[in-house]
């Protein structure tokens, strides 16, 4: 099983875990936070594993894992925002045409949403979760992973992957 799928299983298991005793609510809150975090990382690793298998198919597992560490969370969020635009700007406009596919837009939108949720789950102790949040976010990650699977071999996915790593260089092409 891939890490991304294992993380989704892990998130789902955390949500059905039974808690008892005086610290029941506290422990449930911990599990919900960890589930949201795992949902984000499932999508993060799903994209990155697919990306590295496409750009460096011949490398060893060790090198593959090392390359996966090149992907930066904040940079990925910024790049996702670029692909969400109604009308893409240069250089994406020249490379892809006016807009990304609905599947890629879903991946980009879900990634940004999940990253913010993960930040709240991991760092914001005052954040009050709705009981539906963890399951909704796990479903969001699953939907985005399915969307990625539909396009991962496409030209636009190639451009997206390269953008994740090289956007700063491509920005030089912008007028």
């Amino acid at each position, binding site marked *: 099983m891939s890490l991304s799928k294992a993380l989704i299983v892990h998130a789902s298991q955390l949500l059905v875990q039974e808690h008892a005793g005086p610290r029941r609510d506290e422990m449930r809150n911990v599990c919900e936070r960890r589930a949201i975090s795992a949902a984000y990382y499932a999508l993060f690793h799903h994209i990155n594993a697919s990306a590295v298998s496409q750009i460096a198919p011949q490398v060893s597992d060790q090198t593959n894992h090392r390359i996966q560490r090149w992907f930066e969370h904040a940079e990925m969020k910024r790049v996702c925002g670029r692909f*969400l635009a109604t009308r893409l700007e240069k250089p994406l406009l020249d490379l892809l045409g006016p807009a990304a596919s609905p599947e890629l837009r879903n991946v980009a*939108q879900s990634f940004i*949403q999940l990253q913010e949720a993960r*930040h709240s789950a991991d760092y914001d102790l005052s954040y009050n979760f709705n*009981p*539906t949040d963890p*399951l*909704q976010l796990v479903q969001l990650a699953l939907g985005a992973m399915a969307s990625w699977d539909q396009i991962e071999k496409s030209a636009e996915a190639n451009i997206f992957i390269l953008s994740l790593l090289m956007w700063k260089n491509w920005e030089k092409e912008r007028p």
Partner: protein
Amino acid sequence: MMATEDQGQLEKAKAEQIIAETPLMDGINGVTVELGEDHTGDPAMWLIFQMQPGVNPTDVWLQRFNEFSGKLGLKLIDSGLTRFPYTRLRNAA
């Protein structure tokens, strides 16, 4: 009021107008808009979806909710809003 706050209020009003023109999915009472910054400091907006009392948020319902809220978010982005529309599902008070 600073220019960015003015811009935020304009975007909020535009978002509320688009939401008012969009039929809601079953189980959702209404949507409110809140402005803020996300964890990276980018100006953002939060669409707060109020669940009707008694709705059972099953996997299937949540998948439909994600589809509905995702489409509404893209509609806002397509309208030219610059703030990313984060979504939150909340139980009706």
